[in-house]
């Protein structure tokens, strides 16, 4: 199994990277500011939210601007990746129907692409960290976090891409759901006592561990880390399983 398995992994990685590259070029194509938009998008959103919220809500949270932007860019990563995933298969119908490719790549490439723009957002974040006098060294802790966060997002993306083949209703539903999720996640506010909504919302965990580590330099408990790792692996496995089950039928349903 192993030689063939690794060959497949290699193929999937190669194709994912190429697709991500092509999509990246497409996004900056025909725009005057080009790559700058990767920085401007999160920055503009941040400015708006900061102006609105810093007066009332923000005053109780230490380092509120930093707190806000980290929540924002992490949510941004999640919502961009999952929203794009909805069309991962349908937008590439011609290829799916005319070439036998590893369809996983179509979804994975979107995660890579989103990670890439996320990297620019992290740069902005790092600059702000320094500006507010926080040691940016703790940002290193973000590497394993984003790994598991991506894994979870990828799992969900697999499911969304699969459903996206069969119905376009999900486009509308998902747009609505991410909007709800935005308010149900402590992005511009903080939670004292987690109620059922926060316990069930996976994003809360990733946001909390990132903020605790990077901004407040608090070490999370091992139990909390295990929750995140297990949750990521479970969601990823379920997503991959659904996708594997369904992918052979994609071509004829497009």
């Amino acid at each position: 199994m192993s030689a063939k398995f690794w060959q497949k992994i290699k193929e999937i990685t190669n194709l994912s990277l190429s697709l991500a590259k092509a999509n990246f070029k497409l996004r900056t194509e025909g725009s005057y500011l080009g790559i700058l938009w990767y920085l401007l998008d999160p920055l503009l959103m941040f400015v708006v939210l900061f102006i609105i919220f810093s007066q009332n809500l923000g005053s109780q949270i230490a380092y509120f601007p930093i707190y806000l932007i980290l929540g924002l860019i992490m949510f941004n990563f999640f919502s961009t990746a999952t929203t794009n995933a909805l069309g991962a298969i349908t937008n590439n119908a011609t290829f799916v129907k005319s070439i036998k490719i590893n369809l996983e790549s179509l979804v994975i490439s979107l995660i890579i692409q989103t990670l890439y723009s996320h990297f620019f957002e992290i740069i902005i974040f790092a600059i702000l960290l320094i500006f507010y006098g926080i040691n940016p060294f703790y940002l290193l802790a973000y590497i394993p976090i984003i790994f598991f966060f991506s894994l979870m997002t990828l799992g969900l993306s697999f499911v969304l891409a699969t459903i996206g083949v069969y119905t376009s209703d999900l486009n509308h539903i998902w747009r609505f759901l991410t909007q709800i999720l935005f308010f149900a996640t402590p992005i511009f506010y903080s939670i004292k006592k987690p109620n059922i909504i926060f316990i069930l919302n996976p994003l809360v965990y990733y946001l909390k561990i990132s903020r605790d580590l990077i901004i407040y330099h608090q070490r999370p408990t091992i139990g909390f880390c295990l929750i995140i790792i297990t949750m990521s692996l479970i969601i990823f496995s379920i997503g991959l399983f659904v996708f594997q089950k369904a992918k052979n039928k994609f071509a004829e349903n497009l």
Partner: protein
Amino acid sequence: MINAKSANHINLKGVGKKFNLSPTKKEGILFKCLNLFSAANTAAKDSNGFWALKDINLVPQDGKIIGIIGCNGSGKSTLLRIMAGIYQLDEGKISIGGEVVYITSFGQGLMPKLTMKENIYLVGSLLNLNQKEIKQRFDEIVEFSELKDYVNTKVYKFSSGMISRLSFSATIYCVKHKNPEIILIDEALEAGADLNFKNKAIKKVEELIKGGATVILVSHELELINRFCDWVLWLDKGRIFKEGLPQEIISEYIKTNA
């Protein structure tokens, strides 16, 4: 043409493919839910099913070239897609042994907002080549397509002939190295390029075919079928209507469609 050996590269037994033509497919969840309660639903299910292929038996001898002809909608492309592993069959048995290469024209799949160069890299990746391998073939591809002056032009500015040149050149050079045992060609030779290029393309395909692979060639160009093929299948409404030597089948086909 049926070979006694069972270990042939291509082995199709009673293959059938059903498509669901139900109009409700894209009409949303609500419609589907309503439909669940409708008594007509179960009956409708069967009548909506449409057998694109039925009872296809095909066991070509290795190294032979099989032509497939038939009207639009007779199931030619569906059959090739099943062999390529893109579609799943609903009936029968299929076994494909060896590396398969499926050549079709996917000009529409190119990214119009990317340059020719970027598109070549994209196609190469889709055909499972890594960056280095594509780089090695890049000059040949450009050379063959005769589009050297447009390497950095965005593809949306291309004419349809140029697009089919690009699509064909990129595909053929990216699959050439694979030494496939099975080559499936789906109307790749007739997509809008001029006579000069077409002849070049045919020659290129000939080179590929002569490598000893088992070839399934779908084409509306009867002359091509006649020239290359050892055996011809005439598909009609998803079934093998007739099969035989190229000349016999083709002359009959021409008579029927005259």
